[in-house]
């Protein structure tokens, strides 16, 4: 069976929604961060797929993906640093516990 663009888009969309679902339901902050990685990866897949199937003459999508991977790493680094701080202050990394700021 040939893999068409549609298949790949189906995959990336599924990944996207899995990521969203994960972000909305996981209580552990680290897991939520991982869900975000899923989201970003679905975007990456999109870019690559579009580039390969539709606009193979230019490399816009590929470049975008490369930058995206780098930024995702930077973001994760800062996020993990902050999460460590959360753990220090709250002795927990459960997102439900971190709700002193409200109303």
């Amino acid at each position, binding site marked *: 069976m040939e893999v068409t663009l549609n298949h790949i888009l189906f995959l990336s969309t599924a990944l996207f929604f899995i990521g*969203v679902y994960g*972000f*909305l*339901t996981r209580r552990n902050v680290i897991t*939520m961060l991982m869900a975000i990685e899923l989201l970003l990866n679905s975007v990456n897949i999109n870019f690559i797929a579009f580039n390969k199937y539709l606009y193979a003459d230019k490399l816009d999508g590929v470049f975008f993906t490369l930058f995206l991977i780098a930024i995702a790493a930077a973001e994760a680094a800062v996020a993990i640093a902050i999460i460590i701080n959360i753990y220090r202050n709250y002795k927990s990394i459960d*997102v*439900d516990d*971190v*709700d*002193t*700021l*409200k*109303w």
Partner: protein
Amino acid sequence: MTGDFKIILIPLLPLLSFLLLGLFGRKYLRESSGLIGTLSLLGSALLSVFTAYNYFFVTGKVNGIYQPLVVLQQTWLEFSPGVSIDMGMMIDPISVMMIVIVTFVSLMVHVYSLGYMKGEERFATYYAFLSLFTFSMLGLVLSSNIFQIYIFWELVGVSSYLLIGFYFDRPSAVAAAKKAFIVTRFADLGFLIGILVLSFGAETLDFRTLIERLTTATPQLHGMITTSFLGFSSLTWGLLLVFAGGAGKSAMFPLHIWLPDAMEGPTPVSALIHAATMVVAGVYLVARLFPVFAISAPGALHVVGYVGALSALFAAVIACTQTDIKRVLAYSTMSQIGYMMFALGVSGYGGEHGLGYMASMFHLFTHAMFKALLFLGAGAVIHYVHSNEMEDMGGLRSKMPVTHLTFLIACLAISGIPPFAGFFSKEEILTAAFEHNKLIYGIALFTSGLTAFYMFRLYFNIFWQKDFHSELSDHHGEGPWSMLVPLIILGALAVGAGFVPFSHFVTSDGKELETSVNIVFSVAPVLFALTGILIALRLYKSENETPARLANGFGSFYQGALHKFYIDEVYLFITKKLIFNLVGRPSAWIDKNIVDGGVNLSADLTEDTSGLIRNWQSGNLQQYAMWFFAAIIGLVMVFMSVWK
């Protein structure tokens, strides 16, 4: 123009005196204020007499008819072309007569007050107010413009308010002043609306133009007769409303309730304002517009006649039961004004038909003299015994000889006993009534008997009956000359005023009218009067049980009359109970709770909504993300609905 200036000076002198005394009187002119006021008024009085002479005998008559002369006309306020308030002075027979009466009586009162009010703390203020009143009254009678008359109408009202409330630390005086002002204000509302109606119809406010347009066949008159509202033509409405104003000022039934209470003011004030001058302003007003009443709206004139007759009788009945001497006089004033009113009501325009008009003015003139005299006399009595109540008096004839004599003259005059002044004027009135309306004539005849009765009841109660003793009163005696001289002068006039050939000067159309005393006709009224006097003599000359038994005999009728037929109570009920509770209170309540409450409610609602949605900001990150995601879906929906 020098003559004109003299006329302008007549009201101006009191005004100057008012300003001078009002601004500086209290501090600097306390001692001399009486003199200043009196002198300025003396000036006015002399000028008025001069003007009267000049008008009646020199300049006034053109082709045998007294023409109105406009001495001054200065636009004061403009509304639309032709409709403007002009401050002017119109000289015609009735205004000339009025300025003479006003300045003369006022002068008497000024002189009298020098003695009567001596030592009063607010002496200067008193004279300032008197001057203000005189100025306003002169302005009123000289008005050439119906709106001008309204302006001065209000000013005399407020002077009356200030003077009634002169003893302002007495709650009763304050209440009386307030009542007088408000009741007349209420009547003035009618006057004002009447002016609006008339001026809109006639397209002018100027008296001469107004009368001309509404008495001849003009488009204005046509318009006013053909437009109608609730069954009356707008002309009738206008005139009736104007008459309502006049009725208020002249204390006609049922707007009379303020007059008896107004006696709370100093007695000279009552003499001036509430007997001789201001209260006849209503009569004067009707007389001013008389051609319109008589020619174009006889229906309105009928109303005037019946209201006058009813008031005359009604007041006379009440006067028979009152015990406060000033109140008796007040009701008698009301009754006499009723005479003047119905005299106008039964009059026609021009020639013989205008007899009532002339009679009314004549009575106004004579009444001013003897009623002022009565009040000043009563003032002297009150000054002597320090009380208003008949019970506290008696047997004063030897102690106050001058007062006694003049008071008796006045009583005879008001009762219509020849040859005193009242006889002549009343005679004319009865003649006019007899010719036009028998019912009114009957009422008038009966009332004249009642008049004689209650006046002599008063007279006997004061000067006869029991004996009066008081060390204090003996000490200060009958009163200073300043009080007695006006009594004597007025007494002389009460005798002589009837001989003035009035019908030569003041008539409805300005032409001379020949009148003569018809002996046969006079018999009935004089008999009625004498009967009244005799009954009073029988009942009150000395103390006895008969009056009380008689009162019992009349039972509830007597009680009704004693309580002024409960008119005051009706008013109180309407104002205090109905208007306060059904209009005022709800208005305040609505404002507090509904209008204001609405504003507060919207504020509270906002606050509450804010509280309700508070939980949205739950502090949970995942819920935030959920909302984020939901919002995207929402936007998609919006887009789908918009996008085609």
